[in-house]
């Protein structure tokens, strides 16, 4: 285990997992930061992305699914927004949590009805099948693609948030909703856009994860908790927090599995508990 | 009884409290004056512990309290009212006062005694309600009461917690002349051994009551003296009245 190649591969594993978590949690955290809305159905939207990609890929190939699944999930997100979430915009926090908790139940059974109980799989695109050599080690090409995609999205989001007018509007909204409204920003429209974007990102995470994991009705539940842990550790509503949280959780899980496998299941929760005891609002709270 | 030494607090590069020294004797009624943003409420927040000071010491009855939490200082007899109403809006006036009385009597950790049927608690609630003129509004929900009544309750909450040092942050802000008169009477009726720190804008109201006056400006103590000295002080007039008029 002392050879460097081993640790390089494990580091890549950690980066890959971290970036998957990032794709999954960034939508969650931005939606929260802007709308104070904890969307527990985010995991279900991720699963929806995976299911749609399985179905679409059967006809159009992987890239068809890659492009269409986020769109489909965003469309479902629009539906949810118009039907439910818009009504809850000013409702009690708890009620929002509960409605989206109810949505988890609904989605899970809809997946079972629509796609059956049997777990499904998705083949990676031929372009990225097999292995490549990076940093002197052989590594699955598809995982390198996940890393690259995660980094691109991270950079793009950072750019949009810091360099564009929309980004400035979003940041103003996160900072102080009323103030933003006073400045003439159509807060509701910004919210709507961000919500759709968050949903699309969840769907994208689903497509990207599908070839690595299996596609099951409960796949959303199993990632919801890690995603929540990521955003809570990072501090809800903060992009920087999502990045740091993803990498903390991704690396702790990867290296925990390598170094202390008997503690692998425990270690993430211990991290979360420790962060919350020391920093009750996460590491990078979006507002003080 | 209250002794503040070299108290400092900064928010980033902005010094909101600069080397404040303050010594208040038992039973004294001390008025804190200063223009908006002079750091009066910040000083209150530092005294009760809602803000942590950067340096300096606060002593209450000889005991150093600046490292204690808000609740611990409150148990030592520090009580305050807020400039912006800070009440239990969904509860009734009586329930609000009962919470304060319950805490003051150490009953907030008693899991058996029904405080709403406890004669001694209710007695205190009614007494305080009468003091602040809310005896007729006891069973109204706070959110259904008028603004002025909430100002009265705000002071009532502080009184109900049985303080040694009562700190009132602009009790008369936004209320009419009749009510200001009521507050004056209330303050005059309070036991003489109760130490009172009061932040006030209404000079006439405050100068009548105060034994001594401290004037803050940009977080610094710029004047301390009796009301008559303050009236004569050109500095006070310039800083305070000037700012207020503007």
């Amino acid at each position, binding site marked *: 285990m002392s050879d460097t190649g081993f640790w390089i591969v494990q580091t890549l594993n950690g980066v890959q997992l971290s970036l998957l978590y990032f794709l999954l949690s960034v939508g969650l955290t931005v939606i929260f930061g802007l709308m104070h809305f904890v969307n527990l159905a985010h995991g279900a939207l991720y699963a929806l992305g995976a299911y749609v990609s399985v179905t679409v890929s059967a006809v159009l190939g992987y890239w068809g699914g890659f492009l269409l699944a986020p769109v489909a999930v965003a469309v479902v997100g629009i539906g949810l927004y118009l039907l439910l979430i818009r009504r809850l915009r000013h409702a009690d926090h708890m009620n929002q949590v509960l409605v989206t908790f109810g949505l988890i139940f609904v989605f899970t059974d809809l997946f*079972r009805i629509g796609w059956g*109980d049997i777990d499904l799989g998705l*083949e990676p695109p031929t372009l990225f099948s097999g292995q490549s050599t990076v940093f002197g080690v052989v590594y699955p090409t598809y995982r390198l693609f996940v890393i690259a995609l995660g980094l691109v999205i991270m950079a793009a989001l950072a750019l949009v948030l810091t360099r564009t007018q929309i980004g400035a509007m979003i940041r103003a909204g996160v900072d102080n909703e009323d103030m933003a409204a006073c400045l003439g920003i159509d807060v509701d429209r910004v919210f709507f856009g961000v919500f759709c974007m968050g949903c699309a990102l969840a769907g994208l995470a689903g497509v990207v994860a599908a070839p690595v*994991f299996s596609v099951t009705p409960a796949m959303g539940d199993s990632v919801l908790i890690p995603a929540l842990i990521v955003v809570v550790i990072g501090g809800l509503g903060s992009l920087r927090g999502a990045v740091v949280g993803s990498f903390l959780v991704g690396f702790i899980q990867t*290296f925990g599995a390598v170094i202390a496998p008997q503690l*692998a*299941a425990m270690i993430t929760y211990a991290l979360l508990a420790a962060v919350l005891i020391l920093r009750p609002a996460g590491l990078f709270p979006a507002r003080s | 009884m209250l002794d503040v030494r070299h108290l400092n607090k900064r928010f980033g590069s902005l010094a909101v409290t600069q080397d404040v020294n303050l010594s208040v004797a038992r039973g004294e009624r001390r008025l804190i004056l200063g223009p908006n943003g002079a750091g009066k409420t910040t000083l209150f927040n530092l005294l009760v512990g809602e803000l942590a000071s950067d340096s300096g010491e606060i002593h209450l009855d000889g005991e150093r309290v600046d490292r204690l939490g808000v609740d611990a200082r409150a148990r030592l007899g520090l009580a305050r009212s807020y400039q912006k109403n800070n009440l239990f809006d969904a509860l009734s006036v009586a329930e609000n006062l009962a919470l304060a009385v319950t805490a003051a009597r150490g009953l907030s950790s008693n899991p058996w005694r029904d405080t709403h049927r406890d004669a001694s608690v209710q007695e205190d609630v009614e007494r305080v309600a009468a003091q602040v003129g809310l005896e007729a509004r006891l069973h109204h929900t706070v959110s259904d009461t008028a603004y002025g009544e909430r100002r009265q309750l705000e002071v009532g909450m502080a009184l109900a917690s049985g303080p040694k040092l009562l700190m009132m942050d602009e009790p008369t802000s936004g209320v009419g002349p009749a009510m200001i008169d009521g507050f004056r009477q209330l303050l005059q009726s309070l036991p003489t051994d109760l130490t009172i720190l009061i932040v006030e804008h209404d000079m006439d109201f405050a100068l009548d009551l105060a034994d001594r006056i401290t004037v803050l400006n940009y977080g610094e103590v710029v004047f301390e003296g009796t009301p008559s000295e303050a009236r004569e002080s050109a500095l006070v007039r310039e800083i305070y009245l000037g700012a207020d008029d503007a």
Partner: protein
Amino acid sequence: MSFRPTTRATALCAAITVGALSPLAAQAKTSVGLLLPYSGVFAALGNEIEAGFTVAMEAAGATDQFDIIKEDTEVKPPVGLAKARKLVLEDEVDVIVGVVSSGVLGAMRDFVHDAEVPLLVANAGNDHATGEQCSPYITRVSFSNAQINRPMGDWLAGSGVKTAYIMAADYAAGHQTMAAFKESFTAAGGEIVGEEYTPFRKTKDFGPYLTKAKASGAEAVYVFYAGGEAISFVKQYDSFGLKDQMGLYSGGFLTSPLYVNAEGPAAEGVITALHYMPTLDTPENKAFVDAYTAKYGKGPSEFAVQGYDAAHALLSSQADGETRGAELSAALSRYSANSPRGPISIDPATNNIVQNIYIYETVAGENGLTQRLIDTVENVQDAPNGCVL
């Protein structure tokens, strides 16, 4: 082994016997509690088992002779136990058939034993159920964890593999399968160079573990994973390019027909041992596969055949005239037949099934993935392991 020529004939026999008794049977219909997961992670398995059960009943024309009451265990032991109690105490069923999860089986074991209600286990593979916790009322027509994995140790060592790295999900089945493999593999001269138990149902990314396995330099990796974890594992094993360096072997459901298509080409070349393969070339199996495919439009899995055999064991006990209690249990434990999975019988010492274990490779076929039989280990029988009946 068997004195009954074909399964069809058995069914026919059963049908005739029961038919002859029909006036009597009409007044005392045997009631069967079908206790399976219809929701939760094993819902697919529950549906497969029920499908196999139904195919057998329909083929025998025996559907009318039974009152079948279905209950959902939700794969939760307390729920399974509550439903078992309901079946026995309220519905007063004569026999319970099913149970997918070993946890559910463990929860209801004492209850069925004390209530003296026959339980025909159609999946749950916990060794203890026919070992130290065996009961005259519990008969297993599926498999035991050790039964499937023990032969693989011998076989793998015999095929020239000297070192193996083992990995399994960290729960009872994972540990039992690995223990059985380890014992026979080391006894046959093999060496275990490392082992890893991954958090059960919580591990999605096997990357860190696979990297460790690769670094161990073992000749083979031997694992136990099922369901969604099997899919993730097989795909990730392939994506890391490990398949070319160290062969992937498993005793159990790693490449079950239920999941293998989701695994895709990644499953090619994986060698596993199981008590059934849909491509077995026997007349019994052909008849079963045809009947099953005709009804459901897809081929059966090992879970379906377990349900099928459970139905036949039941039918055969009826043919013996036994409908309840200890007599029914005894009749069930006398069952033997030529099943689609080959000759099977019940071991009187443990009430566990005795059956062939097939070692096969998953290969690409004309219509997706299929199995290539490599070796058959005949009549695999578990030691009593502390079972006293």
